[in-house]
């Protein structure tokens, strides 16, 4: 290792810089997707303009067909078909609601995105410096393989920056030309998504380089076996994070609001943010399975390392975290139901719902055994029997039971939303009258979501074992080893807290100082 970092070591320094960059990037890429959607929903209600919608949908369909022809695997084709179906449906059928609150939500969120953008660039530079210094060997390897990709990335990053500032600073001047402003926003999102796809290619390559990577074409390196799975997973997760962060801002504003109308608005904003987060969260287990399937098809030894060896306890933790997210989301929804009049008859379903979710959680996180990997023996004085699941209950530790538990939790979350809609049809919604503790659920959920993102990122990196690039470039630094769960948890916890501090700063500048101005 050419250079090390004093006190914390190069690996920890790189870990913090990279993870912070990813969190901030996820926010600045995810939030604009629904900002543009909200801006559209908030626009004046107009006629369904088929002359614009139909050609746009046709272009999308043509692009999807082209992508399907280029796709190499069945999984890729499924992902492309689903994405194309979703986008085409959005283009054809979503109509503006003419609700000014959506416009305000979009505007206020975009304000913090512009501030977060600078911090994303700063953390990206820190990440780059760490790669060029202590991990220069990796940087050189990646630049050699992905030179044109990095050049395109730099160019598109510039274009994205320009589009982002133009989109933000033309909000007022283009208030009467919403169509043009929304087109700018769509352009920003397209460029942002391509930037993400480019860097995902590099990240995915490090875990699953294609066969004969030394002589492989650039496209083969980019379109490596887990690129599409990672794209899908990150795209959805970015929107989830964006939604939860909006809900976090709304929670603070709700609790400090002095006027009833502000309280009502921020109550609504928190609900919408959480709704976006939860709606996309329900898709994430499926996206996760697709990515895992791609990894398993690539190399089954990685699968063993992840699910049965050193990373198995990480997945127990993952189950706990996702369950906590669903518990938090359902808790918030039931608090939301309570603010609707005439809902007493529905509240009786609340405790049984949570009882089933908790049972599902227990099943999800019950491990096959409490051994941390395949070689470490049971602690002294404790028999293997005490920490291994009994024979006839072994099904609880299998994927089938876990998948059923997750499905039950997702179904109940969906049912909770159905109850909410049913209650809404009978009673009157009183925005601003939600119990204050519900706002703390909107803080709990992002904390868990960010921690989960950090842990999953660590799993994907640690799955490479002692390789910088799996089977291509070996990690010969003093930090080559897989970190145990405790060490990983501590690192993820530190990054989660630093990210919160940064978001608090962004929020203070954007909402408080901006407001005073």
């Amino acid at each position, binding site marked *: 290792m050419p250079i090390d970092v004093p006190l914390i070591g190069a690996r920890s320094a790189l870990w913090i810089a990279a993870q912070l960059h990813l969190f901030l990037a996820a926010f600045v890429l995810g939030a604009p997707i629904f900002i543009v959607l909200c801006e559209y929903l908030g626009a004046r209600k107009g006629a369904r303009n088929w002359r614009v919608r139909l050609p746009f949908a046709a272009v999308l369909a043509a692009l999807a067909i082209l992508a399907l022809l280029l796709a190499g695997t069945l999984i890729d084709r499924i992902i492309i078909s689903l994405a194309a179906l979703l986008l085409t449906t959005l283009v054809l059928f979503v109509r503006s609601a003419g609700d000014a609150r959506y416009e305000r939500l979009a505007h206020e969120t975009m304000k913090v995105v512009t501030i977060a953008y600078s911090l994303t660039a700063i953390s990206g530079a820190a990440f780059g410096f760490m790669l060029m210094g202590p991990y220069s060997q990796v940087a050189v390897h990646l630049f050699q393989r992905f030179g044109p990709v990095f050049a395109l990335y730099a160019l598109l990053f510039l274009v994205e920056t320009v589009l982002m500032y133009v989109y933000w600073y033309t909000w007022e001047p283009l208030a009467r030309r919403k169509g043009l402003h929304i087109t700018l926003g769509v352009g920003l999102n397209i460029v942002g998504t391509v930037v993400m796809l480019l860097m995902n290619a590099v990240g995915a390559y490090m875990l699953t380089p294609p066969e004969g990577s030394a002589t492989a074409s650039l496209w083969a390196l980019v379109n490596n076996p887990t690129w599409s799975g990672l794209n899908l997973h990150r795209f959805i997760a970015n929107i989830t994070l964006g939604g939860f962060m909006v809900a976090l801002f709304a929670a*603070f504003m709700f*609790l*400090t609001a002095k006027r009833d109308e502000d309280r009502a608005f921020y109550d609504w904003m928190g609900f919408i943010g959480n709704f976006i987060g939860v709606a996309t969260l329900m898709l994430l287990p499926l996206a996760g399975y697709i990515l895992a399937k791609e990894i398993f098809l690539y190399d089954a030894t990685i699968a063993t390392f992840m699910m049965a060896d*050193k990373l198995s*306890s990480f997945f*127990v*933790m993952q189950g706990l*975290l996702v369950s906590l997210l669903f*518990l938090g989301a359902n*808790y918030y929804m*039931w608090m939301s139901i309570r603010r609707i009049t005439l809902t007493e008859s529905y509240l009786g379903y609340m*405790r049984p719902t*949570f009882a089933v979710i*908790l049972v599902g*959680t*227990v099943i999800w*996180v*019950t491990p096959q055994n*409490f051994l*941390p*990997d395949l*070689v*470490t023996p049971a*602690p002294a004085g*404790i028999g293997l*029997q*005490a*920490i*291994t*699941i*009994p024979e*006839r*209950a072994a099904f609880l530790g299998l994927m089938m039971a876990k998948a059923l538990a997750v499905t039950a939790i997702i179904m109940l979350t969906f049912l909770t939303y159905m109850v909410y809609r049913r209650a809404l049809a009978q009673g009157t919604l009183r925005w601003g009258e939600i*119990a*204050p*503790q519900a*706002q*703390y659920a909107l*803080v*709990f959920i*992002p*904390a*868990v979501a960010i*921690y989960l993102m950090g842990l999953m990122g660590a799993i994907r990196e640690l799955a490479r074992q002692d390789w910088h690039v799996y089977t291509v470039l070996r990690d010969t630094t*003093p930090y080559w*080893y*897989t970190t*145990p*769960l*405790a*060490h*990983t*948890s*501590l690192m*993820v*916890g530190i990054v*989660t*807290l630093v990210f*919160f501090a940064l978001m*608090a700063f962004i929020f203070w500048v954007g909402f408080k100082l901006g407001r005073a101005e």
Partner: protein
Amino acid sequence: MSEPAHSQGAPGAGRASRVTAALRALRGGPGTLLGLLILIWAVLPLIPDDTGIRFGLGYRAFFTAMLLLGTLFFWFLGKQRIAPPRGSGGVLASLAAVYLVTTGVLVAAGSVYPQFPRPQPPGAAAQEAAGRGKELFWGASVGCFRCHSIGGKGGTRAPDLTHVASRAGQRVPGLTAERYLSEKVKAGATYEYKVPEYAPIMPPFGQVLSQEQLENLVAYLLTLK
């Protein structure tokens, strides 16, 4: 006047009412919690092993942790409206506290789970072995110091080992310092090479020490450069 009469006849009735009150308190959540704790800690251990459904201690502790987490959740669920703190600073502090506690609990959960050991850096294992070898050298059980000296301390009946690591590699052609020291300690005076000027009195420690002890002792001697 009626109060004393009531209290005189009360011992039995008082006990009954206390029991009734306790049972009433156990209704709902507390009763369910107690029942499940009894199931986990009193009923599950009674299940015979050959049924294949007897959960071990680790799982019972795990189920208990999940049960307490669930109880905490249901307790919070029963709360009506809590009053938020006043002022922006108070609200921000309370939100930060929730965030901090959540993150702290998650880090703690990751830390209490069984861990695989982190591999030691290459030098650390040798250092630890040398430390154990030093204890053997200077300890009463093996007591190499009774005959050998290091840095002016120890016996004089056998060679001074102060710089033994520097010269051990030159004793027998073709043998590294590590290999020579290992063979010499194992065979003692019966080894082919004998240091001149000293009587061949060294016992064959290969018959006394375990392989690990021998390795530790050699690791210590190799530090004496």
